C-alpha cells in the first residue's frame, strides 16, 4: 500500500515536472512569432541568440531581437541586463556605428531587442564583430563574435560629411513594405562625435524628393519632409509613391536654421542628389 502510494506520488511528480517544463518550453518558443534566427553566440556559461525579420543582418538599419540562455539550466534568462558594442575592423582603424541600448520587449519574458545601423558592409578584408556584455544577478559576463553584414541590394543608408565638417549618417527604417500610397516614412539621423560614438542628431530636417529615373525622372506629390516630434526620436514624414517600380529618394539634410548641410535639389540640370535612398517594389 505504502509502496503504491509512493509510486503514485512519484508518477504524479514526474508528470507534473515534465509537463510544466513542456509548457514553459512552448511559451518561450512562441515568443519569437515570425522572427528568424540570425546567429548564436556562446561562451562557457551562456548562449545568446540573435533574431530578426530576415535570416541575416544587413547594411543599414537592423532591428535585432535577442534571447539569452543559461547553458547549464537550458532556461532563457528573463532578468539579464544587456548592452552591446558593434565594431568594424578596418585595415587602418576600428570604428563603431549608431546603435541603441538593449531593452526588454514589452509583454515578453525572454525577448530583448535593440537597433543597430551598419553604415558600411563588410568586404574581403574588413569585417564587423559584436561585443555583448551582460549582467545577471550582479555577475558580469561578456562575449564577442564576428557577425556577417553583407551589402544591401538597394541603398538604405547614407554616410557623409556635411558643410559644417561634421559626419552624419541617415538610415531608412520605414517603409519596409512600400505601397502605391502616401507611405509613412521613418529615418534615423545620427552624428559622428568620434569613432565610437554616434548619437541621435536632434532638431534637423530631412527633405525628400522621390523620383523615377527610368521614367523621365518624374516625381510625386504631397511628400512630407521628415522631422522629429521630440528630441532623441526617429524622424518621421510621408513618402508619396504613385506607381510600382524603381524609385530614388533624393535627400537633403537641413540643420535647425534651415541651412542645407548635404544634398542638392533635383532640377532639369541636376538629375539626382548626392545623398539618396533606393526603393523598388
Amino acid at each position, binding site marked *: 500500500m505504502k509502496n503504491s502510494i509512493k509510486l503514485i506520488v512519484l508518477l504524479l511528480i514526474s508528470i507534473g515536472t515534465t509537463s510544466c517544463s513542456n509548457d514553459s518550453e512552448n511559451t518561450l518558443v512562441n515568443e519569437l512569432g515570425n522572427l528568424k534566427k540570425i546567429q548564436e553566440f556562446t561562451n562557457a556559461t551562456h548562449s545568446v541568440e540573435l533574431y530578426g525579420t530576415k535570416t541575416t543582418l544587413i547594411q543599414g538599419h537592423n532591428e535585432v531581437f535577442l534571447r539569452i540562455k543559461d547553458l547549464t539550466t537550458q532556461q532563457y534568462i528573463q532578468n539579464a541586463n544587456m548592452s552591446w558594442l558593434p565594431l568594424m575592423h578596418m585595415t587602418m582603424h576600428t570604428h563603431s556605428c549608431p546603435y541603441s541600448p538593449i531593452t526588454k520587449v514589452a509583454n515578453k519574458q525572454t525577448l530583448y531587442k535593440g537597433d543597430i545601423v551598419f553604415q558600411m558592409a563588410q568586404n574581403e578584408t574588413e569585417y564587423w564583430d559584436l561585443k555583448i556584455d551582460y549582467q545577471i544577478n550582479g555577475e558580469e559576463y561578456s562575449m564577442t563574435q564576428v557577425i556577417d553584414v553583407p551589402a544591401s541590394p538597394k541603398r538604405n543608408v547614407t554616410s557623409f560629411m556635411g558643410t559644417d565638417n561634421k559626419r552624419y549618417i541617415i538610415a531608412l527604417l520605414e517603409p519596409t513594405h512600400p505601397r502605391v500610397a502616401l507611405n509613412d516614412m521613418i529615418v534615423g539621423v545620427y552624428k559622428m562625435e568620434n569613432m565610437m560614438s554616434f548619437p541621435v542628431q536632434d532638431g534637423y530636417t530631412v527633405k525628400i524628393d522621390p523620383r523615377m529615373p527610368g*521614367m523621365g525622372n*518624374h516625381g510625386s506629390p504631397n511628400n512630407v519632409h521628415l522631422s522629429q516630434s521630440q528630441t532623441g526620436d526617429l524622424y518621421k514624414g510621408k513618402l508619396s509613391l504613385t506607381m510600382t517600380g524603381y524609385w530614388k529618394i533624393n535627400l537633403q539634410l537641413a540643420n535647425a536654421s534651415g541651412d542645407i548641410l548635404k544634398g542638392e535639389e533635383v532640377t532639369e540640370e541636376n538629375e539626382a542628389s548626392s545623398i539618396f535612398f533606393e526603393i523598388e517594389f
Partner: protein
Amino acid sequence: MKKYILLTFFLGGFGWLWAQEKDNDSILPVRLNEIVVIGRGNQLHEKLDKPLATLDEYLQRSGTVDLIKRGSYAWEPLINSMSTERTVISIDGMRIFGACTDKMDPVTSYVEISNLSEAQIQSGQQGSCHGPTLGGAIDLKRHSGEKASMGFSGGILTGYESNAKQRILGGSVKYRDSSFYVLSNITYRKAENYQAGGQREIKYSQFEKINSSITVGYEFLQNQLLEASFIFDEAQDVGYPALPMDVSLAKAWIGSVKYAWAPKKHWVKHWETKLYANSITHFMDDSKRPDVPIRMDMPGWSDTYGYYSKIRGNKDAHAWTVNFNGFYNRSLAEMTMFSNNPNEPDMFMYTWPDIRTLYNGVFVEDVITLNCHQTLHWNLGMGVHQNRVNNDFGLASLQIFYPDMPSVNTRFLKSVGTQFNHHWNDFKLLLGAGYGERAPSVSEGYAFYIFNSYDLFDYIGNPNLKNEKSLETSVGLEYQKSSLKMQFKSSYFRLLDYIIGIPQNEWLPMTIGAQGIKQYQQLSYANLWHNQFSWEFKVLPNLRWNGQLVYSLGTDSENRNLPFLSPLQYRNELQFKKDDWVATASVLGNATQTQYSPFYGENRTPAYAIVNLSAGYQLRWEKQKLQIQTGVENVLDTFYATFADWNNIPRMGRNIFINLNFSFGE
C-alpha cells in the same frame, strides 16, 4: 484620277435612287430624326448618299452633333458642343460606357450602320429619358424584328473606298413568321492608312473590324413579345494618328433580353422591360510607334449591367411615359510602363482605380395636347448615383492626393424640362426650358495621371466635385409650305459648377513630355449658345436643295472660350431623284475658327470647303433588289482639318467609293 471622275459622271448621270416608303431596309439607315417633340410618327425617309458610311459620318449630318476625330475610326460625338461626360449615348435604351481613358472607344464605335434603323438625337433635357444629361442624348435604335418582311429576307453588301483602300463586306439574313423572327447581321471592314489632300499619307490610321449581331423574338399570347439580342464587335490594329498610342484590340459583347406588351384597347399603349449586360475590353499599346520615350501597355475594361422598364400610355389629351432605369458599371484601367533599364522592374499603376457606379432613377414625361395647334410637353427625372473605389491599391493611390477621401460617394440627381409647341398656318414655334444635374464621370472624379495629348497635361480626378448643373432655354421656329421647309433652333445653356481641368503648379507631372498636372475642378459657371438653321427646298419635282448652317459660342466664368465650339459650319446639297436614279452634289465647310481656346489647348483652325458628288441606281426584280452607289468625296482633294480634329489631324483627301447592296425578300 480624272478618268475616275469622268467615269463616275457617266455612270451616275443625274438621277435619284431612293424613295423608299418602306422602312424595313436592312442596310440603309431610315431617318435622321432630331427630336424636338417626343412621339413623332413615321417620317419622310431620307437616306445617306453613301449607305455604307460609318455611323460617325452619318451622325455628322445632324446640326446638333459634332464629332471629335482622333483617327479614321471611332469619333467622339458632341451634342450642343458638349462632350460625352455631359451627354448620354445609348443603344436601344441600354447604357454603355467606353473602356478607354483617352476616349478612343465612344459607344458609336461598337455598332455598325447596317444594324441601325435610326439614331434618335435629343437636345438638352428632352434627352433625359435614359439617364441624366445636360447636353442631350443619342439613342441608337437597331432594326425592329416586328417590321421585317414575312419569310426569309436579307442581303449582301460590299463596298470599296479608294483613299484608305477600305474594303467592306457584310450580309444579313432575316426570317419572320406570324409569331417569331430572327435577324442576323455581320459586317467586316478593313482599311489601310488614309491620305489627306495632296496625297499626304497619315500614318497609323489603319483599322480592321468585324461586327455581328443576332436578335431573336417570339410573339406569344396577344400582343406580348419576348426578345433576346446580342452584338459582338471586335476591332484590331486600330490606329489613332492624333494620339501617341494605338489600339491593339477593342472588343464588345452587348446582350439584352426584352419583354414587351402592347395591348390594343388599354390606357397602357406599350410596356417594355429590358435587362442587359455589356462588357468592353480595350487594349492600348504603342508597339507600332517607332519613337517613344518609354513603352507602355494601357488596358481598360468597362462592364455595365442594367435594366429599364418603360411604360407609355394615353389618357384623354395626355400621352405619358414613365421609365424606371438603372445600371451598375465597373470601370478599370491600368498602365504598365516597360523599363528601359533591364536592371529596373516595370512600373505599374491604375489610371481608373476600379470605380463602381450604381444608378437607379425614374423619368416621367407627359405630352399634353392643349388644343388642335398647341401642345405642352414636360418631363421630370430623379435618381440616386453612387460611386465606389473598389480596390485598396486604387484607393491608396487617390489618397495620395485626397488623404481623407472615403471610398463611397452618393449623389441625388434631378432634372426637369418643358417645351411648348404652337402651330399656326405654316409655322411652328417651339419654346423650351429645363434644368438638369449630372454626376462627374469616372475620369473627372477618379482619374489618376491620365495624359491628355491635346493640351499635354496629366489629369487628376477630384472625388470632391459637386454635381454639375445646367439651366437651358431654347427657341425654335419651323416653316413648311408646299415646296419649302425651314427650321431654326437656338439653345442657350448656363452650366453651373462647370467641371474642367485647372493647372496645379505644385504637383509635378508624370508622363514624359507633359507640361504639368491639371486637376478637375469647378468653375462657377459657363455659357454655351448653339444655333442651327436648315432648309429643304424643292426646286423642281425631281430636284431638291438642302442646306444647313451651324454656329456656336461659349465662354467660361473667366471669359475664356470653351473648347470644341463650332465656327460657322455650312452644308449645301442638291439632290436629284428620278425613277431608280439618284444623284447628289454637296459643298460643305467651315469658316475660320476665331473663337478658339488656347487655355484648353486649341489653336486657330483655318477655313475650308470640300465638294462631294455621288450617284446611284437601283435594279429591281420580283423580290430582289440591287443598289449601286458610287461617288467621290472631297473631289478637289482639299487638304483640311476641322475644329474638332484632335491635334489638327487632317481629314481625308479625295476618296472614290462604290457600294453594292443586294437584298432579297423585301
